[in-house]
């Protein structure tokens, strides 16, 4: 439907606000925009069933957070009610105190935290529903081809296992097997294990038949060693640079340049390694006009949030303690949080054109 890169940008644009802001207004808009994206263009996807599950998980997480925060945090000026206290204080130090003063501040903060958790979950759920996983895997960089294979097997594993579990259960039911307790698991489990092993062997054979791993142009031992040394060196430079940057604030430029150097070396090495792997594509993804539109909207939203964050976080923060005040609402940021709905607007209607 859309290019994988478009979806990745969409994911970034939807996720960044949840990381940068705790303002409930933007979170609500974001959440609803993602929900609209799912319920319009995502509903027909084969993965759609998982969305409802994640929604339920998100709701329960939000409810948990909204309940636990006011019960455990007693600060804030606006006391709603006072409950009997139950405290846990090993060695005289208050570790946990349930009940006591229930404040509006703690309640609102818990609610907002729950909201942001739910938003993150729903964004990933919607992304899962909308994106083509196989295309996503294909966009893994070439030098990571082994990782790509592992991930694609892992992704295929769960649905295949569910399907084969269903088969085994049906077969056993026909034979009169009834599930009553933990002991009855064995007749289900054993066939599942053997079929899984069989599938693994089958996969390995088919991969070998297709020449997996054979395309890597063989390099000299020395060159292989040089790549490894280069990766180790670049990672060391990166870590040492980060450490230096944080620990010696007086000479930041040393750490900064060390880290940047390490990063550059790493990128160069990985690129050089990736060039040795020849990959062919049978079906190329198409970049359509609507991809440009959605990507532009996502980038714009990312830019707005980053700009607000850099220029001063006051517009983004919501911190109710010590006294609750309603957060402000900036229409520009509100519009930027609306970005996840962009694919809905640009997707052509059914029957008109395209997918």
């Amino acid at each position, binding site marked *: 439907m859309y290019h994988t890169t478009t979806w990745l940008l969409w994911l970034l644009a939807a996720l960044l606000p949840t990381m940068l802001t705790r303002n409930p207004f933007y979170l609500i808009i974001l959440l*609803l925009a993602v929900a609209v994206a799912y319920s319009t263009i995502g509903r027909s996807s084969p993965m759609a069933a998982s969305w409802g599950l994640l929604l339920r998980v998100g709701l329960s997480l939000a409810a948990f957070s909204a309940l636990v925060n006011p019960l455990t945090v007693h600060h804030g000026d606006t006391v709603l009610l006072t409950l009997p206290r139950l405290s846990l204080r090993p060695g005289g*130090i208050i570790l946990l105190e349930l009940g006591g003063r229930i404040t509006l501040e703690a309640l609102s903060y818990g609610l907002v935290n729950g909201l942001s958790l739910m938003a993150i979950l729903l964004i990933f759920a919607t992304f899962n529903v909308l994106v083509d996983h196989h295309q996503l895997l294909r966009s893994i960089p070439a030098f990571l081809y082994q990782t790509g294979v592992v991930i694609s097997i892992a992704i295929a594993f769960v649905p295949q296992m569910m399907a084969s579990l269903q088969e085994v259960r049906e077969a056993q039911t026909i034979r009169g097997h009834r599930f009553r307790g933990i002991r009855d698991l064995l007749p289900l489990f054993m066939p599942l294990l053997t079929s899984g092993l069989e599938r693994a062997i089958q996969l390995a054979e088919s991969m070998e038949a297709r020449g997996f791993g054979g395309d890597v142009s063989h390099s000299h031992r020395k060159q292989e060693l040089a790549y490894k040394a280069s990766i180790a060196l670049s990672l060391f430079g990166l870590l040492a640079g980060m450490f230096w940057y944080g620990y010696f*604030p007086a000479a930041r430029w040393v750490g900064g340049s060390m880290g940047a150097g390490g990063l550059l070396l790493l990128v160069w090495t990985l690129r050089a390694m990736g060039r040795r792997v020849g990959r062919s594509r049978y079906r190329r993804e198409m970049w359509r006009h609507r991809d440009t539109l959605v990507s532009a909207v996502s980038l714009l939203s990312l830019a707005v949030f980053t700009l607000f964050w850099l220029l001063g976080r006051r517009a983004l923060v919501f911190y109710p303690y010590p006294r609750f005040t309603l957060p402000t609402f900036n229409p520009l940021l509100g519009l930027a949080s609306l970005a996840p709905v962009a694919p809905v607007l640009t997707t052509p209607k059914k029957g008109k054109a395209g997918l």
Partner: protein
Amino acid sequence: MPFSAWARADGPSHVGLVVRFGDGSVFTKCVKFDEDQISGLEVLLRSGLNVIYQQSGTGAAVCKIEDDGCDYPSEPCFCQCPGGPTCIYWSYWHLKSGAWEYSPAGASGYPVRDGDVEGWAWGPGTTGSGLEPPVIEFSSICAPPPTATPTHTPTPTAAPTITPTPLPTPRDTPSPTAEPTETPLPTDTPVPSPPAVAFTVHPETITVGECAELRWDVEHAQAVYLDGQGVVGHQAKRVCPEQTQTYELLVVSAVGELRYQVTLNVVDLSPTPVPTDTPTRTAAVQPTDTPQPQTQTPTPTATGVPLTTPTATSVPSTTSLPTATPLPTATRRAIPTATPMPICTPVPVPTLTSLATVIPPTSALVAKPDIGPTAAAAEAQVTGPHHPLPSAVAAPEALGWLAFVGLLVLLVLIYLRWRLGERG
């Protein structure tokens, strides 16, 4: 140090609080509470100081007290901790048998009981140590009411002055009983550097109902008082007096007390030219290096500043002698005349011999028959919602909400359009 019988008695519990600010000034307060124990953060909050803290799942971290610290959440709570072994933050201490002990727990998790002394210090520290506040015993902070002798035993450590900083917010009106004490300056002061002071009002003339900005920038001072109220060195304040006012800045420094005045002329369209000046005001040359009596009687309605009894510094290593009796509540306007300022007069800059200081009622150095009500008031502020929830909506806020609702409606429309298009 003997605990006072007052502290042991049944009834409200008391805890001493010592806060050492970045400039070395120290605030002490006896905080009263009715529970058998409260958290350290609660003590700080009930002291009436302006505290900003970061609340997280594991507890609360104190980011800012009054003007020292970090403005969470617009900046990180430990904004002066850029990494590295040491950083500047509010370290938390407990006074255990005459010495400060770095707190083993966070402020929201540490239980404070009757008779404890809590310490906070803004300064460089690591995880496990830091700049210690000066040792001030419980009995010095929470003096028992019957013995009204404010004998303050000075601490040999760090802070040369004990500068109580009363709160800028009007809710923290200090109780009107002040016990002025006269304390000579220690003779062995280190090389004194004269303070650099700039005190201005802009504009200098306003009409009734308008406001002007008072601004002061003071360097090398031990304490700064605006009309008797402790303030920080660099600050601006909006004032809206209804008649011509003279504002006085008292700068206490190592070279003595300096007073600076600015006058804000208020042009009243209705002819009421008589300014209510207290008779003791001397029409002095401004800025005057010769100290003047603390004469100003600011009207609370006009300035927004609660009428306070003069605050002051007490210089340690001396015993303070009370020279005036506590003032009754009703005679607030009489405060200036009752203050001993004229007695312990002018400290010529080179020959400083004595420094007249007045201690605010919130200070530990005060005989306080009124500590109860003060603490109770502070408590009431914390527990009850003293500021109503924002019900009055300002115009820009309303516009923002309108935009929010508009965006939500837009989302619904997008959804409906899709749904209808699907059907049609």
